[in-house]
């Protein structure tokens, strides 16, 4: 359904252009959860921006259900890494969620129910009158999740949505996300740093190499039943494998730092 073909992304920068992505190939099937792992600054967010249609690739092509992606589409909803910048600061919690419903012309009668439901899901129902500036970092992330889920898009592009949440809230959010996914069959591209999170959620895990000229160096199929338990030896082995796959870049970086 989502398809990236030899995508290259070059940013103009001083003193020379910065090649963030250099030939990324990727296919995400309908109804699949693909997790992306990779070292900080490798180009995960850039990749999501290309998928969302916010950024045009410098070369290569992007398509969604066979149609080339030329801009943002309402079928693909992005969860932004920097939650603060993507919320509408002049709308309170409730109104931020309502925004999507209103512009999608969801019948007014349903609004209250949908909003209550999703706000309760992310545990913000007691804070519905606060404005984004009055929220904590984690609350902003949760609000963005509620807002994105409430419009029930076919594709979710999520950029570290749970990074600022404590372990237990995060676990709850995993359950919520999987429940919705199982019920509605959304396609999800999920960027994270947390290997355990990737294993918990993903059908497949894409590993990106460190930048510049980053690519998806490896794709791992997770043929494990859900829920997945990290204590399970098969899962633990996988965890270690992935950690090792990510390590070479770190090792290289450490070497450089030592000089």
């Amino acid at each position, binding site marked *: 359904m989502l398809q990236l073909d030899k995508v290259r992304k070059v940013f103009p920068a001083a003193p020379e252009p910065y090649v963030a992505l250099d030939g990324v190939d990727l296919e995400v099937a309908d109804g699949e959860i693909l997790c992306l792992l990779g070292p900080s600054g490798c180009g995960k967010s850039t990749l999501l921006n290309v998928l969302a249609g916010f950024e045009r690739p410098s070369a290569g092509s992007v398509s969604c259900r066979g149609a080339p992606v030329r801009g943002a589409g309402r079928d693909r909803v992005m969860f932004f890494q920097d939650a603060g910048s993507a*919320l509408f600061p002049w709308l309170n919690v409730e109104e931020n969620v309502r925004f999507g419903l209103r512009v999608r012309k969801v019948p007014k009668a349903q609004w209250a129910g949908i909003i209550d439901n999703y706000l309760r899901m992310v545990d913000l129902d007691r804070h519905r009158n606060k404005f984004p500036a009055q929220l904590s970092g984690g609350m902003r992330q949760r609000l963005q999740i509620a807002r994105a889920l409430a419009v029930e898009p076919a594709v979710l592009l999520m950029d570290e949505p749970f990074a600022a949440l404590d372990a237990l809230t995060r676990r709850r959010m995993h359950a919520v996300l999987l429940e919705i996914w199982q019920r509605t069959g959304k396609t999800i591209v999920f960027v994270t740093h947390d290997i355990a999170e990737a294993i918990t959620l993903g059908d497949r895990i894409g590993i990106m190499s460190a930048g510049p000229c980053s690519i998806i160096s490896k794709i791992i199929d997770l043929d494990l039943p859900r829920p997945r338990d990290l204590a399970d030896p098969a899962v633990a082995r996988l965890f270690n494998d992935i950690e090792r796959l990510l390590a070479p870049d770190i090792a290289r970086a450490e070497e450089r730092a030592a000089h």
Partner: protein
Amino acid sequence: MRNFAAVPGRGVLLTAGSIAIAFLSWQVLSTFIFNPFLIPPPLEVIRTAIPMILSGEILADVSISMSRVLVGFAFGSLAAIVFGVLLGRLQLLHDLLDPIIELMRYLSPTAMIPIAVIWFGIGELSKYFLIFWGTFFIVLVNTIAGVWRAPIARQRAAECLGANQLQIFVLVVIPSAAPYIVTGMRVAMASSFMSIIPAEILAADSGIGYLLQKSSMLLQTNRIFVALLTICLLGFVFDRIFRFLVARTLARFMSFVAVT
């Protein structure tokens, strides 16, 4: 916007105090240092004003001038906001029209008087037009600047939540640009009050601008100062009302950057 909704008690006190000091120094300066004939002291001005107020002369002038300012300012601001959002978003349109705007905005309302007469005659319409002219470009430049600085992430979020271009304009870009637009309107307010004077050169027989001109022609210094003081006071009150309305209705659009 920190001050837009200041503590009323302290605010009123400070305002009164500061104005009192200003008037006091004016009184002292023009009595003892300047020639009171050149710059009449405030008490003198008030003495001149009282019969004008009692006879209703000033009130009539004020109401007619204010209605002109209000119409010109409202339409000028509205047109500038609509236009500014379009120019700020549509690069091609901007590149095409920017040079013309850049040429025209240096024409003062005074310079536009002949054109106003040709287009709109010597009735009220041409007066509205001149005040419109004094408002439009200021709000326009500010609106474009505000639109350019509307954070892209917010617009992208709106877009993928399902907003169409018009909705992005109205629901995201304009609110994001609100602090610029409001600042532009406050600046333009002064300009639109100043534009009363050229507007009322044009076949007015009442209004504060007319009073000012007639008194200037006749070298009636006291009456000139009555007119000037009236303009200042009207502007002051107008700005306070504007601030109050902004604080009441637009506070949510104004405060977000400061709070973090």
